[in-house]
Every structure is written in C-alpha cells, then in structure tokens.
C-alpha cells in the first residue's frame, strides 16, 4: 500500500499546484466565481453573528431578572397572552411575603432565602417643576428589595427599614428618570410629584439598559410599600419576589415555594393553583422558539445565496473541463487514472470555495467590528465555531459544486479528448 499512498500524495500535490496555477491564470474568472461564495459566506456568518448576538443580549437581559430570584404572581409568564386563564384568580396580598419569611426562617433546610413583596404600576406619571414623564414604572417594596434585584446605585442610598416601616415618602429612581427630570443637576433631595403626593429622591440607580428591548430598568421609581399605597391605592399588581439560596437548586426551590403558597392560600390537595410561580427561564422557553425560527429562516435564506454561488462554481468548472479537454486527454495518455482527474477538478473547485470562504469570513469580521464600533448596542458576536463552520461549509460547497464536472472530466475518453479542438 505504501507506493500507492506515495503516488496519491504526489498526485494531490500536483493537483493542488495545477489548481493554484489555474486560479492565477484566470484571475477575473476565479474572482467572479468566488464572489458567489464570498457573498454566501458573508451572509451566513453575519446571520450567525446576529443569532449569537441575540443570544447574548438575551442572556444579559435574563441576568437582570436574576437567576436566583423566582416570582409569585397572579399570572404565568410562560402562557403570556392568555390573560383569561388568570383573570378570575384572587389577587396576591403583600402579607404573603411576611408569612413566607416566617416559615423560611423557621426551617433551616429551606431552599428559600427571603421573600420580598412588591406592588407596581406601569402607568405612573412623574413630574418636577414643568417637566413631566409618562409611563413610568412605579414600584412599592421593602428595604429588602435590593437582595432580590440587580442594579447598583450611582448616588445616594436605598431606603432603610425605618423608612420602609414608617411609609416615608422617599424614593430611588432609575437613570432615565434622573437624567430626564434633572438634566443638569443632582436628583438627590429633590421632591418629585407622583399623582397628588410628593416623594423625595434619596438615591439614583446606575444605568442598566433595557430588558429584551421591551422594558427598561432605568425607567422605574422605587419607594416603600406604604408610600406606594398612599399614592396609588391598595389595588395594584402584586408580586412576591423570592430569592433562593442556591441557583443550581432552582427546581426544588420552586417545589418548596409552591407548597408554601398552597398552604398560605389554603388549597386542598388536588385543587388547582390560583397563583403562578415564575422564573426567568419562562422567558427563555417563550423566546427560544422565536429565536430558533429566526435562525432557521435566516440560515435558509442565506443558504440560498450560497447555493447560487455553488451553481456558479459548478458552471465554471464545467466550462473549465470543456476548455481543458485536451489536457485531460493528455494526462490520461500519460497515465493519469480516473480518480486523479476527479481529484484535480475537485481540488480546484474546493480551492475557489475556500478562497471565497476565507475572504467572506474576513469581510464578515470587518463588518462585525464596524457594527460594534458604530452601534455598540446592536448585538453581534463572532465566535471561533462560526469560523470553523464557514470554512467547513466552503469546503462542502466546493465538493458539491465540483463533483458533477469532475466526474464528467474523469469519464472522458482519452482518445477523443486528445483530438478535441
């Protein structure tokens, strides 16, 4: 077998050299042919980076919700839109948080750490002097809130147990509110108007960004529950935020919370829950199908452009076989076997595809950098997997598009080919 392997090596080297010769000898043609692959690979890698970016933006957003916080609410996140299912459920009460905390602290084996009540409205209006902000997210909670939420303060402080218990009219605002109402001055100690009450700002949050581009954490104002009730009344949307001890044990934690909530709600065995336990994973399961849909559609569409490129290569390789019929005849006369000829044309089309693929990859990389510089918020992410995948795709494209012409070439009759004009 050894001489055969050596022969294969020499023949492949020769084919590789000839392929490079051929590409160099027909620069314009090779470039135009490779262009199809370049465009295809750029499209596919850009699609890939976009999908990667969406993924990353997604994880960033989900991290804002906290991987170790679960939420007891009237409705479920994973069946959003089906509000009628939850409409007749009784509202949650903020007192549940105290009841939960009593049970949790009594049980050393509990998976849960702390429960924090929260009332909120999306419809708040905040004003200061002649400036008014609509659609502010107003939130009432206790001083324990920060244990269950992401976000650091950029100035001032959060409210204390005393302020919380005393229902003091103080609040901490998000960065958007602070910069909109107080563009040129500090927001601290200012009194902002919420409905017919005034709330003193004691702290501001650092900018956090939007959650999935839908909801902004920078557009909220957080105050003690008592203060919130004084302004908006008791009938606002209630959430119990529950922090768990170990985020890897989220499932048993959810089980435990479910049991506790059933106890508090006094549900009989077999009776259906009239509350929902939500976690950030629900968003993932909601959005994953959408993301996958985008990915499949995107890859299909961009794959079409690569397919067109492949047809171009097939076409040009057929032309090349036709043009070099005599050369094929000669090589066969000198002892080239079928697979030698097959290999030669395959290598040629793979080379063109590889050159196109690497060029396309370079262009995609440049575009990605450009996007990151011009629009830093736009989620694009280049990965080594993507590089590998596109090189693999180029090679496969080369083999697929070169196969038919190469087989044709390998089957040419040597005597006829030698006489071909």
């Amino acid at each position: 077998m050894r001489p055969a392997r050596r022969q294969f090596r020499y023949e492949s080297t020769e084919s590789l050299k000839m392929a490079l010769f051929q590409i160099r000898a027909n620069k314009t043609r090779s470039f135009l042919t490779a262009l199809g692959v370049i465009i295809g690979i750029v499209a596919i890698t850009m699609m890939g980076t976009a999908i990667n970016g969406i993924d990353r933006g997604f994880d960033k957003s989900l991290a804002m919700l906290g991987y170790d916080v679960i939420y007891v609410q009237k409705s479920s996140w994973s069946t959003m839109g089906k509000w009628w299912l939850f409409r007749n459920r009784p509202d949650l009460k903020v007192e549940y948080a105290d009841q939960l905390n009593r049970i949790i602290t009594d049980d050393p084996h509990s998976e849960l750490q702390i429960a924090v009540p929260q009332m909120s409205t999306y419809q708040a209006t905040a004003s200061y002097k002649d400036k008014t902000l609509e659609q502010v997210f107003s939130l009432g909670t206790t001083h324990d809130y920060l244990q269950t939420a992401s976000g650091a303060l950029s100035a001032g402080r959060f409210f204390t147990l005393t302020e919380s218990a005393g229902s003091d009219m103080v609040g901490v605002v998000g960065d958007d509110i602070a910069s909109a109402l107080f563009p040129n001055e500090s927001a601290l100690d200012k009194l902002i108007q919420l409905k017919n009450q005034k709330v003193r700002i004691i702290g501001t949050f650092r900018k956090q960004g939007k959650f999935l581009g839908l909801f902004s954490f920078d557009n909220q104002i957080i105050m003690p529950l008592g203060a919130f009730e004084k302004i908006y009344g008791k009938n606002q949307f209630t959430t119990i935020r529950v922090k768990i001890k170990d985020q890897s044990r989220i499932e048993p934690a959810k089980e435990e919370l479910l049991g506790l909530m059933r106890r508090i709600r006094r549900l009989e065995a077999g009776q259906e829950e009239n509350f929902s336990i939500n976690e950030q994973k629900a968003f993932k399961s909601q959005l994953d199908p959408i993301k996958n849909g985008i990915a499949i559609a995107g890859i299909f569409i961009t794959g079409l452009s690569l397919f067109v490129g492949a047809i171009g290569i097939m076409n040009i390789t057929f032309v090349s076989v036709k043009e070099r019929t005599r050369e094929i005849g000669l090589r066969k006369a000198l002892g080239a076997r079928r697979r030698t000829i097959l290999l030669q044309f395959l290598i040629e089309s793979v080379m063109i595809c590889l050159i196109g693929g690497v060029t396309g990859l370079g262009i995609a990389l440049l575009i990605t950098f450009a996007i990151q510089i011009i629009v830093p918020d736009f989620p694009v992410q280049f990965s080594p997997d993507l590089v590998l995948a596109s090189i693999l795709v180029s090679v496969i494209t080369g083999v697929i598009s070169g196969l038919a012409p190469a087989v044709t070439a390998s089957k040419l009759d040597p005597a006829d080919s030698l006489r071909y004009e």
Partner: protein
Amino acid sequence: MTNNSIIIMQSLCKFYEMGDQVVRALDSIDLDFKLNDYAAIMGPSGSGKSTLMNIIGCLDTPTSGTYELNGQQVADMDDDELARIRNREIGFVFQTFNLLPRLNCLRNVELPLIYAGVSPEEREMRAVEALKQVGLGDRITHKPAELSGGQIQRVAIARALINKPSIILADEPTGNLDTATSIEIMKIFSDLSKAGNTIILITHEEDIARYTRRIIRLRDGKIESDSRQ
C-alpha cells in the same frame, strides 16, 4: 512470432456503430512488433491507422481479438489498468505536441513520473537527463511558448522517453513541422532506434516513413502490405 515480440495482435477488430451502420475501422488485424522494431504505419485517412494507434497506445480497446503488450493481455483491461499500462509501457509523441503551456520544460517532461509515483527529487533528475538526451539541456526552465516547433517536439520526445517505455508511439510527429525540422526530429527517432528503443510511427508522408525499417500499409481496416527495408 518469436518470444522477443513486444506486441502481438491476433484477429483484432474494432467496429463502430454509426446509426444503423457498422463501420469496420479495423478488420481482423494480425500484427506483431519485435523488440527494437522501427516501424511506420501508413494509410489514407479512414484507413484505420488512427484507430490502430489508439489501440496500440491503450487509449482504446478492441471490439474483439487479442492484444498482448510486453507479455500482458490488455484487450480487456479496465480504465485504471490501462492508465497504468500507458504510464509504464508507452511513450506518446503527438502531432500537436500537447505540452501544457503553463508548465516549463522540466515540469512537462516529469508529468508521467508523477502518475508513476516517483519522488520529486528523482523526477527532476530524470527529467533533466531526458532533456539533455534530446539536446535541450539548456532550455530546462523555458516554457513551450518560448521554444520553436522543433524544440517543442523534442521536449515531447523527452517526455515520451522519461518512463523508459517498451514502445514509443508517435502520431504524425512531423505533421506540424517544416521539412528541415522534420529531418531533425526524424534523426532523433533514428538515434533512439539505434539505442535499442522500439518505435512505431503513424504517418502519411512517404519521406518520413523512409526513415524506418518497416512500413505497414492499411486500407479499409485491413493490412494491405507489411514490408521490411
């Protein structure tokens, strides 16, 4: 037929179907060539000499009959076996030279050795040797476009010689050359014959055939005459 025959053909036939007609390109050919034969195959166009050359050169297989080349039955070999035979046993010289224009002389000459699995170092050594043999030792790195017709054909002869074939098969080797260059090329063939090579020429020129020691005339797929001189 003695045991120093290098080619033995018996009742060799090649038929082509053209529509519903059968063309008998070669009809029951019995022919043998001995070691160091220097023969010319002659005949008008359509006589079957190209077909005969293709079969001798293992570029084509006969419809029926036997063909033994250097002790090997080649009539029913498959494509890859034929490729091997062409590589090892036959050195081709063509009317149209058939050098690859992109490659220099050295690369053109070493081409058969690539398909024989010879290492790059040995290939180069042997190619230089073969080029020297045809008097082109100083044109090694030239490309075909930089050479005259006679020089190109000498490169082709060097290529035919490089794998030390059993026979050198030349198809109208002087067809594209002027008289002076033709004489020069035929002198090379004569020298190669004197050196012990077996050479078969296909030609329609009497002047060229006269250089050989044996003339085989074909007509309508049959041997009309076979004379040694």
